[in-house]
């Protein structure tokens, strides 16, 4: 499964970068989201995956008695997922506004700085 996951990560990275390299604004955002998912999975995989042992201490004991999944990557990814929601929503709105003000959705036409326009 690890190999499959690594391939998935590769696919997500490739797709993310490919979409970011497009000139269309909407594709840029989709690319960022795909890339973010890939990064989350990468952290998850590199923290080693464990099946059926969530990092939750059993009800009757005070410490783990058996093997458990590493909680640290999970905490990191949880944070990353929530933050990326903030980023995505901001990016979407930024694109929407930019589209409205600049009246283009071609990234290449947006490269002029304020001074020139």
């Amino acid at each position, binding site marked *: 499964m690890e190999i499959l996951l690594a391939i998935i990560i590769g696919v997500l990275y490739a797709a993310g970068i490919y979409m970011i390299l497009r000139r269309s604004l909407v594709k840029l955002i989709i690319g960022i989201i795909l890339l973010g998912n890939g990064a989350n999975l990468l952290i998850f995989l590199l923290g080693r995956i464990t099946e059926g042992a*969530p990092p*939750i201490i059993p009800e009757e004991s005070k410490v783990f008695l058996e093997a458990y999944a590493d909680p640290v990557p999970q905490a990191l990814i*949880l944070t990353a997922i*929530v933050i990326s*929601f*903030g980023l995505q*929503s901001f990016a*979407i*709105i930024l694109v929407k506004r930019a589209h409205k003000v600049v009246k283009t959705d071609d990234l290449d036409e947006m490269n002029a700085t304020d001074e020139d326009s």
Partner: protein
Amino acid sequence: MKTLILRTASNYLLPLLLVFSVFILLRGHYLPGGGFVGGLIAAIAFVLHAFANGLDNTKGLLRFHPGFLMPVGLGLAFISGLAPVIGLDDPFMTGLWFPEPFPVIGSVGSALFFDIGVYLVVIGVTLTIIFTISESA
């Protein structure tokens, strides 16, 4: 999307989902769940209600702008971290606990209040974003 079935269902779903989100929030310390997930579920509950009944109805239900939840939640989280500094001269974010566990909820401590703060902020942020967008869309 204002179908009768969805509207009727959402009226019952909203309180149910909200109770569920609080449940998820409270059990977070022992089982999967917590402030982030709880907050997101609560936010989805409101968004669902807004889809079914229209944004204005949902806003009327809330009575205040969801944005206000952000400073409230941030303040709560910050104070729960600050409490040990003021009360006991301990470092910032030291966990404080009531000695006896409460029925149903379990043991209550500063971490729980912190989680409630997170819960409120997440609701506030999500609803602010979604409401603002659907208003201007």
